[in-house]
């Protein structure tokens, strides 16, 4: 019961953080608030018992994410161009979509309920079968690496491909890159 209250408080803090990120026009300050967002979401994952996800969030958020953001900031300007004008067409698109999404909540099984489709056969199968078939204590690892081995292969390939993509964009020396930007600006 108490965990649910903690969840609600953390979600509330997450909302405040995301609104604050949205309101910043200084991209530097927004980057720092993103760091707070990452810390908060790691805490939320811990509360939801998703230890492995929380671990990933902790490692990526503290070690890499902020540094990549800063690397991006190094090659662009710090200040965001603020558009004060409210776009009517965008608003017309966003509000009905939001209402549709909220309406869609009714079809989703309630949070943590025992009769969710995912918990009726699949989780049961993994939990009972894993210790016999795989024989390692951490269920998440056995699902990721063995039952869903093809998925994980796909993920690794995605990381590798993304890395190649970044290299193709940024791999040439900064001198060439700066040259292009300067010419465009002048």
């Amino acid at each position: 019961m108490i965990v649910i209250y903690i969840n609600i408080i953390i979600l509330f803090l997450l909302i405040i953080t995301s609104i604050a990120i949205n309101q910043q026009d200084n991209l530097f300050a927004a980057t720092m608030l993103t760091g707070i967002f990452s810390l908060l979401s790691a805490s939320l994952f811990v509360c939801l018992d998703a230890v492995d996800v929380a671990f990933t969030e902790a490692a990526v958020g503290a070690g890499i994410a902020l540094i990549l953001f800063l690397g991006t900031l190094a090659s662009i300007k710090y200040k965001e161009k603020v558009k004060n004008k409210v776009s009517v067409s965008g608003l017309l698109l966003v509000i009905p979509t939001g209402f549709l999404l909220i309406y869609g909540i009714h079809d989703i099984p309630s949070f943590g309920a025992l009769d969710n489709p995912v918990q009726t056969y699949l989780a049961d199968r993994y939990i009972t079968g894993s210790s016999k078939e795989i024989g390692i204590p951490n269920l998440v690892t056995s699902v990721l690496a063995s039952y869903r081995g093809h998925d994980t292969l796909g993920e690794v390939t995605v990381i590798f491909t993304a890395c190649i993509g970044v290299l193709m964009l940024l791999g040439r020396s900064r001198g060439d890159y700066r040259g292009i930007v300067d010419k465009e600006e002048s």
Partner: protein
Amino acid sequence: MEHHLVLSVVARIIIPLIMLFGLYVQFHGDYGPGGGFQAGVIFASSFILYGIIFGVKKLRSVVNPTIVRCLAAFGVLLYIGVGVVGILKGGEFLNYNLLSKTSEVGQHIGIMIIELGVGITVASAMIILFFAFAKP
């Protein structure tokens, strides 16, 4: 930042510890939280700390970028290789049961090797990204 005395001394102490912690996460994925992806990121972040404090030039002399690129591909190949071994032994792709005499040992070996592949790829990818973003 190398003649920032406090930072350079603390970095000298803490970098090996981060690396060892990364390897601990890599090899204990079977027992606790963690696994290849997290381990790769933590391991790479020790290199990134080194690059931030002692300069990218020095990091380049420690880890050759070309070798890191090869390692990123090697991790994926290691993963696929385990799958192909399953085919060669007469089963399906990524069937770990055939890797050893008993299926349980086979599963254990298979999971450990593919986690290692994931870890190598992720660590190298993160170091490559750092190199790409922090050009001299």
